[in-house]
């Protein structure tokens, strides 16, 4: 039987056993719900913030509607002007929360209009309507109201804020996925050792193949979960109009998936190799603490340093450090602050590192996985496998 078949059998077992487990399915459904609900929540809050609904007793003059729209438009908001026949219907509309405020024109053109609220006056509405009323009066008086032209020294990309959100959210997803699925590999290795089944398995499967199969099987689950989450997130975001997706979205997503694969394989292999040194789960957490810190360090580096200075020296160096690259490179890519050759070099360095990890880690795993008496030292495991 070929080694590939053995690896595939191990991977398939992980896929089936874990993919069917209630833990995986419940986790997937729960995170799905969280993503959708948070998107909807943000959307509803956002729409409430920026929309101004003003009632107008009588027929609103076109000058008022356009002036109000111009004022609100500066804040990316929308306006809605509702014509109301009289004060009684206006009060009713306020009561039913169909409008935020109602403008009552003065009895004569000289008399100032009144802005009516249900209870607490909404300062945004007061500001916008006041400005609109002033603008009409000033233009009637012949004052030129052409606003100053707005320019930036550094040209602003329309998609920038969206790219920022995508980068941030993407790296969070990436970190959580790498960490949680890496931890599955760790617990899988320890469980096999603890239940002693590993000796039966290793009677037919080479240790390195067992580790690879495990990493790949769980990795496929992780990839499925990440694709589903990112997919739902993007679809939900677009659907509720929360986010105008920048044109770089799909390259960004592809980059996230690529780096999930690399980062996951790197970290889960580290977890698996070190986990083999332990003989119980409690020991395993201790043994792998340095790896957890490494992963968290890379994440914090990404969101605190790289995010603020995506093409600075730290970011450039971190992109070539394999344990940091999976968090740093997709962040820089999402912000459009990385050259293609840098990405290629970073991928090459990380793949080489992973290969080395398989060779060195495979030997440690081989030496450690059959030793069931307590916690093993790295050096002893290395020597035990010959």
């Amino acid at each position, binding site marked *: *039987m070929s080694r590939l078949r053995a690896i595939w059998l191990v991977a398939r077992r992980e896929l089936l*056993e874990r993919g069917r487990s209630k833990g995986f399915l419940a986790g997937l459904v729960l995170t799905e719900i969280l993503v959708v609900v948070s998107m909807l929540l943000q959307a509803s809050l956002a729409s409430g913030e920026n929309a101004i609904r003003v009632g107008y007793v009588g027929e609103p003059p076109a000058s008022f509607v356009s002036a109000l729209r111009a004022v609100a438009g500066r804040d990316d908001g929308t306006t809605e002007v509702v014509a109301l026949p009289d004060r009684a219907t206006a009060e009713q509309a306020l009561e039913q929360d169909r409008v935020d405020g109602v403008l009552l024109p003065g009895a004569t053109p000289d008399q100032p209009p009144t802005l009516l609220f249900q209870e607490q006056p909404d300062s945004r509405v007061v500001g916008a309507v006041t400005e609109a009323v002033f603008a009409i009066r000033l233009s009637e008086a012949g004052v030129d109201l052409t606003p100053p032209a707005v320019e930036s020294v550094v040209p602003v990309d329309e998609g920038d804020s969206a790219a920022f959100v995508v980068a941030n959210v993407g790296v969070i997803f990436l970190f959580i996925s790498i960490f949680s699925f890496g931890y599955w590999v760790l617990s899988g290795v320890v469980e096999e050792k603890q239940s*002693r089944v*590993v*000796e*039966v398995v290793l*009677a*037919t*499967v080479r240790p390195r193949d067992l580790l690879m199969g495990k990493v790949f099987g769980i990795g496929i689950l992780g990839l499925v979960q990440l694709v589903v989450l990112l997919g739902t997130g993007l679809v939900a975001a677009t659907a509720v109009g929360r986010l105008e997706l920048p044109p770089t979205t799909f390259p960004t997503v592809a980059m996230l998936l690529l780096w999930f694969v690399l980062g996951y394989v790197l970290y889960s292999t580290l977890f698996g190799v070190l986990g083999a040194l332990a003989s119980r789960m409690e020991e395993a957490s201790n043994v792998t603490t340095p790896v957890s810190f490494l992963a968290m360090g890379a994440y914090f580096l990404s969101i605190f340093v790289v995010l603020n200075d995506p093409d600075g020296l730290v970011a450039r160096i971190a992109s070539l450090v394999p344990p940091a690259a999976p968090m740093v490179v997709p962040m820089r890519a999402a912000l459009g602050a990385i050259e293609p050759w840098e990405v290629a070099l970073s991928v090459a360095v990380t793949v080489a590192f992973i290969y080395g990890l398989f060779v060195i880690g495979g030997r440690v795993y081989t030496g450690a996985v059959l030793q069931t008496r307590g916690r093993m030292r790295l050096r002893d495991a290395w020597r*035990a496998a010959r």
Partner: protein
Amino acid sequence: MLEVRDLTKRYGSVVALDGASFSAPTGRLVGFLGPNGAGKTTTMRCIFGLATPDRGETRWRGRPIDQPARLRFGYMPEQRGLYPRMKVGEQLAYFAQHHGLSGRDARAAAARWLERLGLGDRSAAKLEELSHGNQQRVQLAVALVHEPELLVLDEPFSGLDPLGTATMIEVLRERAAAGVGVVFSSHQLDLVENICENVVIIAKGRIVAEGEIDQLKRSSGRRHLDVEVTGGDGAWIEGLGDNRVLERRGDRVRLLVEDTIDLPAALARASAAGTVRRFSFEPPALSELFMEAIREDEPVTEGTAR
């Protein structure tokens, strides 16, 4: 035939195997005996490539054992273990596939062996839901599910109730009769004496006795003399020559004697002392051969067994 040649393995300063060599024929049950720490498990691990010997090799059917050959072996390690939360039937099929069976053949073989071991209705149960005895049966099924050419079982009888023991014996005999090589370790020497034709005895990493049990018994220079004399005072034993009292119960005495003893003379002495109700002359039991074999072994100079 399984051959082990000059197997040597150290763990640090501990010598687990010290040039162990033996061969085990197929078609019969071979008991692999030795005190704890003698090197039984390490030998088995070397056969399955789970431990790499410092020196020496293992051979099957005249060729060095490699990974493809191992796929046709069945193994039951001393430390029992399967996936606790995996369904029994799927688990068996999984291991069968690792031994090279196709998915369909693996499922059929799994069902067949579960039926054979009386677990036909538990195929969909998780392993952890089974009783201890039934988990042991599944463990045996894992070793058998791919119809191996060679079965290597580490302490297969430990922890089995009489019913489980009977099933195990039946299955092992059946496999041996089918021409399979069956090697198993055990501390239950009486059981081994009853069911095995051959034994290999290991002590401190070296093979100290090997061959057919009957042959080993015959070639032993010692015999048991079991005599019951009523009315005597037991003093007749003096003057029998070189002997050692193994057991004395009432009028009955069991003696360890040389096989060159003058039996007619001994019987005459016993008859003179009283009425002889029993007088039997037998080769020693396997347990005595075992004790003898491991005592003769000189301690290895470097390190001690754990």
